[in-house]
Every structure is written in structure tokens, then in C-alpha cells.
């Protein structure tokens, strides 16, 4: 992982490639790499869909090694949804493949003058780029079938569906999983639209005969990896709850805590929650012959995913995440798991962020386009997005645009990005993260739910403003560091509670690279990443006034706790003063 591949999609005479040493970006991986390249090389005032924007794919520091659960891929650019810097993060096999081809980053630059659509193929004979107009508007699953037929079964695919080609704000980038299904997504911020603007339909990586990356100190690395694995297996969240029920185990707890945003954030308790809970869906999957425990990439030891099948045992989608079940479920007043799984598949197939799309449908329901609870209507609307009808084009642009188009006041977005599945009035720490994150409303940027609701890493009362700034700050710093390693963010549940597991992670990095990092160095890396991102956003025109929640969260009380978001603006401005 000592080189960077740059592909100029706008070069005269067709795309051209340039391989260069990692140079000034040495020692960076994942989000640190994507944010360093974007903040240094992309003009902050550029149009996100223009030639000046760059789309960066970076595996984490440990991706492609024997380190468990290290296959996360970072995708960075200036976001067409938020106008900020963006790092969207995905599981799947691609990070492993890219790192084993030796690349610390693949950077797509420029913009084709024609409307050609390209496939970039990595194989034994090097990297080849070819135009293939027959792929136009193909959904992700159909596309991957074609790629398998053309390049063999053992491939990893990074691709966009019709939404990306139409350059929609809700467009994701799909990454294939261990079954070569395009079920993993760099979902947020419209990264798929940027890939579409570069004219790239798919990046296909042949995975035959790829060699595992080797650590500098094999023995120490093996020992640290073993301790790290034991830490994940012995923690009850990463060792038991996530494998058994997946992330959707959160439906019941958020609902019981009164922080489950229902019908476009109009209440904190959903009466249909039991029908779509993690317990119910895991049970359904097992009874129907699906899978309730499954990993998204080779080396995952948490296995929070699964396979959702219909009543005849036929594949419907991967097990939908909590945020997906919420966005297409409770947020829209829908409580049929079969409908939610179908919508999950449609989003994956058209190449859409399930959070942005679900929240947008809820906003459309508030606007009266369809009624809350209208499952068939929701399916029809997502279909319109995939087909690119005029209404579909508006919805595919995300919640903010949809709210504006239909005159809706209550639009749950920060910096243009839809809020995920936790009401910031009843989970105030996550409200701080939504408001201040460099990414727009993003739960993963500093998952205060862990400490507010789940009592992981201590406990800070979710209903009060006290302690939330410090909590969100520390989590945002830690997350920026974890996102740079290639590790799945869910390791945090074990790392926050078990110092020896955190130490094992540091030992693994040190043994792999021959370094002597300390915990302080890891925190410093997190701060460095956030500083680069904040600097880009400031140069793009973002100020403290953008680090705010929509006003209705400050004015309208949320039942049943009858609370508003109560963290002061002046305190929000202190999150990045460390």
C-alpha cells in the first residue's frame, strides 16, 4: 500500500492513468487519506459534480492484512448533498482487494466531455479502462451479474446504479460482499452522484491470487490480533447481541427510551415497533431459512448482518440495518418487515442511501404526497426515483430538496443531510453530533447513543444537555481515528469498555508498520482528521451558524418526555476546542 493510482477521466482522447508513490500522504489510511487528499487538492468552492472535484477510494491502514474486521473502505469527495467534505464508509470486499493491489488510494479526477460510461478493471494484466454504453441505467444487481459474466466469479465490485448516473443527492456507491452481492454501500452524502459525474459505472477488482499484506513484526502482530479478537468475542455487545440480532436490536431500546423518531420526528414512540424489531426479524429470518448471523466482509468476527428471505425462502435482501428499518419503517409509519426488506433491496439496486431515501419518503408523507403508513405508496415512490420520473428526481435529491419543493417546514436535516434514527431531543448527545459533524447529520460521526442510551463507555443522561459536548467531542475524535484504520466502527463497543482491547488495536498498528504509537497519538490522528475536514468546510463557506439543528427541534417538544433540544449554541461552538 505504497502507491496511489490517479485516473483522469477527463483526459483528451479518453481516461488516462498515473501511478505515483504515496509521498506526502504516507502513513494515512481510510478517512485520514480521503480527507487529506480532498482537503488539500479539491478547491472547496468547486461544484461537487464538476471536473475539479475528486472521488477518493481508500482502504484502511490494516485492510488486506490478517487483522480481523479491517475491511472498511472510505470514499471521499466534496459532497453534492451537503456541500461539505465527505467520507462515506462501506463494508464489503473492495478495501481488501484495493489494498492487496498495493494502492493506498484510487483517485478519480476530471470529468469526461462525452457521455461515455466506463468500467475500470484491475486484474493480472494491470488496470484497464473501457467504455460500455450497454451498462447505462443498469441497477446494481444486474450490473454485478454482467461483471461476473465478463470478469469471473471471484471479483469485488464498486458500482453505481441509475441514481448515481442521474447524479442524485441520495445516490450511494455499492460494494459487493462475500457473496458478490452489491449489498454494502458507501451510502451518505451523494457520493454515487460524484462517481456518476466522473462517468464511472464500476470498478471491478479480480480477487484471484491476491496476497495478504504482511506485517513488519509477524509475531507481535499475531499476538495483538489474537488479543483484539478475544476482546471482541468476550464483550457482550460485539460477542453476543450484534451477532444474534444485528443492529436492529436498537428498535426496541430506542422505542422504550422514547427516542425513536416516529412519523417524521413527530413523536418518540412507535406503536408498530414490535413488528419490525431486531428480535422479530432475526426470528423471521431463522424460521424462513435465511440467516440471522453473517459478516459483510472476509475477516469480520462480529457478524452483525444476515440474509432476509421471503416466506418461500427466496432471497429478498441482506438483513436491513437498524437505520434502514427505522427510515423505511417507523419514520414512515410502516410496520411490515417484508415491505422494509423490499425497500432495502430497491435502494441497494437503484443505488440509494437508505437513510436519505427513507427520511425523504417520510417528508413526502408529511407533504401529503402519500399518507403515513402507505407501504405500497412508499414502494411506488422509490420506484419513481429509480426510473427518474420528474417526481422521482425531486425525491432522489434528498429530504431537504423534497421539503423545499413541497413547502414542508419540518425537514430533519443538518447541512442538507437527513438525520438518522435517533431523535436529538430525547438523545441530546447525538444531537450535538448531528449539529457539529463535518459530514452533516451523521450518527456514525460520534455515536453518543452508546453512552446516552446503551450505557457503553459510561452513562450520560440522554434527556439533559449536561456532559453532551464533551461526550460528542471525544467520540468524534475517536471515530475519525477508527475510520482511518479500516476497522469496523462497531469495535468501539468493546474498545470503549475494555482498555486492553484498545491497547491490542494500537499494538496491531505498531506491529504492522514498525511504529510506537500511543493512545495519545491515536487521539492526535483523530483531531488531525477533524481539523482538515473543518478547514475544508470553512473554506467552502461553512460557519458556526451551520452547526445547528433545524429550529423546530428547539421549539417543539417531543412526546413522551416532552423535551426540546436543550444544548446551547455557545456550547455547540466548543465541540472542536480541544
Amino acid at each position: 500500500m505504497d502507491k496511489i493510482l490517479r485516473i483522469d477521466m477527463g483526459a483528451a482522447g479518453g481516461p488516462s492513468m498515473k501511478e505515483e508513490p504515496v509521498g506526502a500522504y504516507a502513513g494515512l489510511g481510510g478517512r485520514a487519506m480521503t480527507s487529506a487528499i480532498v482537503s488539500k487538492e479539491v478547491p472547496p468552492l468547486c461544484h461537487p459534480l464538476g471536473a475539479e472535484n475528486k472521488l477518493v477510494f481508500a482502504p484502511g491502514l490494516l485492510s488486506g492484512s490478517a487483522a480481523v474486521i479491517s475491511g472498511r473502505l472510505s470514499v471521499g469527495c466534496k459532497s453534492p448533498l451537503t456541500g461539505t467534505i465527505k467520507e462515506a464508509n462501506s463494508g464489503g470486499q473492495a478495501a481488501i482487494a484495493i489494498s492487496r493491489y498495493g494502492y493506498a488510494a484510487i483517485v478519480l479526477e476530471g470529468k469526461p466531455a462525452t457521455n461515455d460510461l466506463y468500467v475500470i478493471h484491475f486484474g493480472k494484466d494491470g488496470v484497464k479502462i473501457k467504455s460500455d454504453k450497454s451498462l447505462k441505467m443498469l441497477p446494481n444487481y444486474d450490473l454485478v451479474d454482467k461483471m461476473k459474466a465478463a470478469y469471473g466469479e471471484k471479483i469485488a465490485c464498486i458500482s453505481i446504479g441509475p441514481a448515481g448516473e442521474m447524479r442524485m443527492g441520495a445516490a450511494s456507491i455499492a460494494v459487493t460482499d462475500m457473496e458478490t452481492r452489491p449489498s454494502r454501500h458507501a451510502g451518505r452524502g451523494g457520493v454515487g452522484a460524484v462517481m456518476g459525474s466522473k462517468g464511472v459505472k464500476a470498478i471491478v477488482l479480480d480477487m484471484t491470487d491476491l496476497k495478504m499484506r504482511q506485517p513488519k513484526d509477524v509475531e507481535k502482530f499475531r499476538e495483538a490480533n489474537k488479543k483484539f479478537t478475544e476482546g471482541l468475542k468476550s464483550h457482550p455487545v460485539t460477542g453476543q447481541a450484534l451477532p444474534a440480532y444485528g443492529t436492529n436490536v436498537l428498535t426496541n431500546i430506542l422505542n422504550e427510551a422514547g427516542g425513536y423518531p416516529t412519523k417524521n420526528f413527530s413523536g418518540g414512540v412507535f406503536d408498530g415497533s414490535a413488528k419490525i424489531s431486531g428480535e422479530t426479524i432475526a426470528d423471521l429470518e431463522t424460521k424462513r431459512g435465511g440467516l440471522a448471523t453473517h459478516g459483510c466482509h472476509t475477516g469480520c468476527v462480529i457478524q452483525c448482518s444476515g440474509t432476509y428471505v421471503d416466506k418461500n425462502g427466496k432471497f429478498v435482501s441482506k438483513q436491513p440495518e437498524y437505520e434502514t428499518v427505522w427510515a423505511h419503517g417507523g419514520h414512515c409509519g410502516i410496520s411490515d418487515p417484508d415491505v422494509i426488506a423490499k425497500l432495502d433491496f430497491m435502494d441497494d439496486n437503484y443505488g440509494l442511501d437508505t437513510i436519505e431515501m427513507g427520511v425523504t419518503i417520510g417528508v413526502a408523507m408529511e407533504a401529503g404526497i402519500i399518507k403515513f403508513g402507505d407501504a405500497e405508496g412508499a414502494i411506488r415512490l422509490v420506484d419513481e426515483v429509480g426510473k427518474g420520473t420528474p417526481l422521482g428526481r425531486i425525491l432522489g435529491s434528498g429530504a431537504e430538496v423534497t421539503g423545499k419543493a413541497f413547502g414542508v417546514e419540518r425537514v430533519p436535516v443538518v447541512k442538507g443531510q437527513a438525520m438518522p434514527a435517533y431523535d436529538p431531543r430525547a438523545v441530546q448527545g447525538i444531537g450535538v453530533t448531528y449539529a457539529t459533524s463535518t459530514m452533516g447529520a451523521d450518527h456514525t460521526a460520534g455515536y453518543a447513543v452508546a453512552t446516552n442510551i446503551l450505557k457503553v463507555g459510561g452513562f450520560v443522561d440522554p434527556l439533559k444537555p449536561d456532559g453532551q459536548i464533551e461526550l460528542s467531542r471525544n467520540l468524534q475524535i475517536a471515530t475519525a481515528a477508527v475510520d482511518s484504520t479500516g476497522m469496523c466502527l462497531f469495535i468501539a463497543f468493546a474498545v470503549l469498555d475494555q482498555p486492553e482491547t484498545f491497547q491490542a488495536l494500537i499494538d496491531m498498528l505498531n506491529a504492522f508498520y514498525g511504529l510506537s504509537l500511543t493512545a495519545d497519538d491515536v487521539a492526535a490522528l483523530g483531531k488531525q482528521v477533524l481539523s482538515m475536514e473543518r478547514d475544508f468546510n470553512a473554506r467552502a463557506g461553512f460557519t458556526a451558524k451551520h452547526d445547528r439543528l433545524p429550529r423546530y427541534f428547539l421549539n417543539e417538544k417531543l412526546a413522551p418526555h416532552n423535551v426540546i433540544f436543550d444544548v446551547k449554541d455557545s456550547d455547540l461552538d466548543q465541540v472542536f476546542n480541544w
Partner: protein
Amino acid sequence: MGPISVKVKLFASLRTGRFEERDMELAPGTSVRALVHALGIPGQEVTLILVNRRHRDWDHVLAHGETCALFPPVGGG
């Protein structure tokens, strides 16, 4: 004083071999700790206690009409 009535909800692995939801008659003054003990659930299996949708600790004394939700360690995101 007669017994009080409390709705008890169990989630995730705590349901195994037990129940999802039950209205229980308890002696006045019963704490969450005593309730969990009476249900035969090992204390270390319960990490989250929500009574009427608020986080409470083991010593919380249950009142008539309250809903007590018990969770094992859970996470996601």
C-alpha cells in the same frame, strides 16, 4: 397495603425461556433488583433498566402502574 401491578418487558436474549411482556403483581417496595432476582435472571445479564422510558438503577423502587423494561447489553448503529 395490597400488591402493586407492574408491567414487565424483557428484550433480546432475556426473552429466551421466559416471556416478552407480563403484568406482574408485586409487593409494595419491590426494587428492580428484587424483581430481576424473582424472575431468576442472573444480575450480570441485565445492563439496561428503563422504567416508564427513563433509565433507572437497581435500587429503583417500582410503583403501581409502572412499566419496567429490561435489556441485556445491546449495541448497534
